[in-house]
């Protein structure tokens, strides 16, 4: 952790402003909302993975005395089958609407088909069982490669393959094909002394946030809709509600409650429009919360994938050519993270000859959604494993190999654009110098096989729109209202940037997350954008306040603003040879009224994120069980505003990566029913499954941010899958190419079963 002597607040570790509420149980999360007269909503979900909905009979259920309202897709406004821009993403409205309540077809087990509002949650559940749905059961398709086969069951009759503006001629399950190509692939492979080509597959997995989705809606007689909910972006929810319900955004207020984890899974709406519709029809507050099983079966998981990578290098270790073929599960509707995966797969390296093809494929699983660096972990698992095998074939140290091939400022990214200032090589050098890498490990210990793995990862990081309002109180303390929901301590990291500008201690800034009526448009807390983009908005607002206060001081001293200087929270001037000075608090008092700074910003220049991880682990050769012994994660964060929370992002990403690599994955039976839709059998790591994780924050300041911030939240999940796979493969002497590396798969790879 580099010293930031030039800063007063940045780089320190104050207690987060919302901390006390969260350790005392007072913090109000979405499910903590209660209205005395509220109704409870429940969703009827398809028991089939693929079925035509012939009819829905709600007459029996409607006669239930506790039932106040029942809705089906007929109650949703008709929306056109067109792609439109929605906030910061693009989406087909028909698909968006059909995923809320299925219209003609149910496309996955758990797909909502109807919803009930009743006076009691248990009675709402009872009423669901009285709704009679007539299904025509269709054959499901659950594997991307099978879904691409001619003659596979087709999910959407209207879906035709899109490839860079060209539309296919017949309907099938491949939603899109993208390609990135540079140089001369054939020549590149011809120049290679060693070539490795392998197929990889990764399971469908879930973000696993501990708080399930929830929404409470109220509709007033004047047509104003309010929705209290758990979301990564209140404005994104407002945009989606406006499109799905065909309501003007100004009629919708979304109140973001505290959020119990998102990781990309709380951007897309699910029950929010249903709660809204039930509230609009009953004119009563309607509260809905999902069960854990509903979350697994009915919300966007991260896509499972099939990836083929071919890589060539010469005897000096220089990569001569790289080829990748990525096929991602979109789920029931188009839009997987294959685009991001294709962009990230070779991003840490300078490769002159390459071709990357990405395919987005629909199949009978829930519509996939983002999960922390969407697509990149899948993609880099494949590429970083092939690189490790190349290193073995060349008998070359994997860190050395990365130093030879690593990308730096001025090199060309795989899809053409030139890299600005990046810190990839700095993470590799830090790994090389780290005592973890210096200390060797024994290959075996009491019958266990040990291995060390190294892998790198990339995430582009995002900018986008953020808004911040700063109000200076007469006592000199500051209320800061931001639009970014705080999932991991961003109230602190944003307040600290404003505090730095104003020369105040972090504690003098009181940050709050505003609802959509009380702060300007702000994009989702996602894309590793919040500390960067909302931070810039906060810095700009603070600079505005500083200028206003210089004016106040000048006015007070009867000087020109240009005569007043500001240093370390004090205003200074010279008048008739006399040194004048006022503290921030004195000027705030002198202002004689509130000072307000409101800013909206949409900064580019987010600055890419890179990481390099080292893991030591142990394989029980008799049971196939893998235990992580030691983990070191090195990441360029540009500048750590609050180092503890930057480290926390890394440690959390590593833990999720361990789960993805070893124990997590959707299991399906032949009918397309998930067989492990609970925290018992969807195995996320517990505290007893992990060692202490050592984090090294490298700081290569991002020129696109006044303090050098780079997004830090997503890239930590990119290297672990490959790092762990490389360590297991080196420990057992067999290449592992399928995730999760469950004990039975390890035993099979070793030929024990």
């Amino acid at each position, binding site marked *: 952790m580099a010293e930031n002597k030039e800063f007063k607040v940045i780089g320190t570790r104050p207690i987060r402003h919302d901390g006390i509420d969260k350790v005392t149980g007072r913090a109000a999360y979405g499910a903590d909302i209660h209205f005395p007269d509220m109704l409870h909503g429940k969703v009827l979900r398809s028991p089939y993975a693929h079925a035509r909905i012939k009819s829905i009979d709600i007459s029996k259920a409607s006669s239930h005395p506790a039932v106040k309202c029942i809705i089906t897709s007929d109650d949703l406004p008709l929306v056109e089958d067109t792609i439109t821009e929605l906030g910061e993403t*693009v989406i087909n409205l028909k698909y968006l609407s059909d995923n809320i309540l299925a219209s003609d077809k149910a496309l996955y087990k758990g797909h909502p088909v109807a919803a009930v509002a009743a006076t009691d949650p248990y009675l709402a559940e009872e009423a669901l069982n009285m709704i009679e749905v007539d299904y025509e059961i269709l054959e499901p398709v659950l594997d991307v490669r099978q879904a691409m086969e001619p003659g596979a069951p087709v999910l959407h009759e209207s879906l035709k393959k899109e490839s*860079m*503006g060209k539309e296919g001629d017949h309907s099938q399950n491949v939603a899109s094909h*993208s*390609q*990135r190509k540079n140089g001369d692939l054939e020549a590149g492979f011809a120049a290679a002394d060693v070539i490795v080509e392998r197929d990889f597959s990764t399971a469908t997995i879930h973000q696993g946030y501990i708080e399930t989705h929830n929404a409470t809606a109220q509709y007033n007689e004047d047509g104003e809709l309010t929705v209290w909910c758990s979301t990564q972006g209140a404005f994104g929810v407002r945009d989606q509600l406006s499109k799905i319900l065909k309501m003007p955004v100004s009629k919708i207020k979304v109140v973001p409650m505290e959020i119990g984890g998102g990781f990309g899974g709380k951007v897309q709406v699910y029950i929010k429009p249903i709660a809204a519709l039930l509230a609009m029809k009953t004119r009563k507050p309607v509260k809905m919360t999902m069960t854990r099983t509903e979350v697994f079966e009915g919300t966007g998981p991260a896509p499972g994938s099939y990836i083929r990578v071919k890589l060539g290098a010469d005897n000096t270790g220089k990569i001569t050519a790289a080829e990748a073929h990525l096929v991602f599960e979109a789920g029931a509707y188009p*839009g997987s993270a294959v685009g991001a995966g294709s962009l990230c797969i070779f991003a840490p390296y300078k490769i002159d000859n390459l071709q990357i093809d990405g395919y987005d494929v629909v199949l009978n699983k829930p519509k*996939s959604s983002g999960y922390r660096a969407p697509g990149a972990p899948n993609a880099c698992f494949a590429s970083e494993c092939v690189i490790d095998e190349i290193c073995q074939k060349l008998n070359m140290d994997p860190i050395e190999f990365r130093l030879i091939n690593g990308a730096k400022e001025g090199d060309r990214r795989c*899809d053409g654009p030139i890299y600005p200032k990046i810190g990839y090589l700095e993470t590799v050098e830090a790994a090389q110098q780290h005592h973890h890498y210096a200390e060797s490990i024994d290959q075996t210990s009491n019958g266990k096989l040990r291995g060390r793995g190294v892998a790198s990862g990339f995430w*582009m990081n995002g900018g986008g729109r953020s808004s911040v309002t700063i109000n200076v109180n007469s006592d000199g303390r500051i209320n800061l209202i931001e639009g970014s929901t705080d999932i991991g301590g961003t109230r602190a990291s944003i307040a600290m940037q404003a505090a730095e500008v104003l020369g105040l201690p972090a504690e003098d800034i009181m940050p709050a997350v505003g609802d959509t009526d009380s702060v300007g448009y702000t994009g989702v807390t996602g894309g590793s954008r919040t500390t960067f983009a909302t931070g810039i908005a906060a810095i700009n607002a603070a600079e505005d306040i500083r200028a206003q206060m210089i004016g106040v001081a000048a006015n007070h001293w009867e000087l020109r603003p240009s005569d007043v200087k500001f240093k370390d929270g004090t205003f200074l001037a010279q008048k008739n040879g006399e040194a004048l000075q006022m503290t921030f608090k004195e000027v705030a008092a002198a202002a004689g009224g509130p000072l307000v700074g409101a800013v909206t910003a949409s900064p580019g220049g987010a600055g890419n994120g890179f990481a390099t991880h080292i893991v030591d682990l142990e394989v029980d050769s008799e049971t196939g069980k893998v235990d992580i012994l030691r983990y070191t994660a090195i990441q360029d964060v540009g500048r750590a505003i609050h180092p503890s929370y930057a480290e926390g992002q890394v440690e959390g990403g590593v833990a999720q990566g361990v789960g993805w690599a070893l124990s997590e994955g959707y299991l399906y039976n032949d009918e397309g029913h998930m067989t492990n839709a609970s925290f018992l059998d969807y195995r996320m790591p517990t505290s007893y499954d992990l060692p202490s994780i050592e984090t090294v924050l490298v700081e290569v300041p991002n020129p696109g941010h006044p303090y050098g911030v780079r997004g830090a939240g997503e890239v930590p999940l990119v290297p672990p899958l490959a790092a762990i796979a490389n360590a297991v493969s080196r420990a057992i002497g067999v290449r592992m190419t399928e995730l999760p590396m469950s004990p039975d798969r390890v035993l099979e790879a070793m030929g024990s079963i």
Partner: protein
Amino acid sequence: MALVSVPSLMQDLTAGQGQIDIEGETIREIILNFEKAFPGIKDRLCDGDRIKPFIAVYVGSELSQAGMREPVSPDSEIHFVPAISGG
């Protein structure tokens, strides 16, 4: 003249040419001149007067936020790349 990289999946319209110098001070002008040289290009890149949602435009190393209005300097390098969705 700005240097435009032609996406591989569009090179069927440029007779395999991967990089082409094109006049223009905005992305709109670039695309219109591109269309003059290689008819059909505009339909691939645009819906009416806007860039298709699944295509992103880079001018140099910066992702364009202004779409068709994005200014272009003579020494700019322009890349039409698949937009990132699902993130």
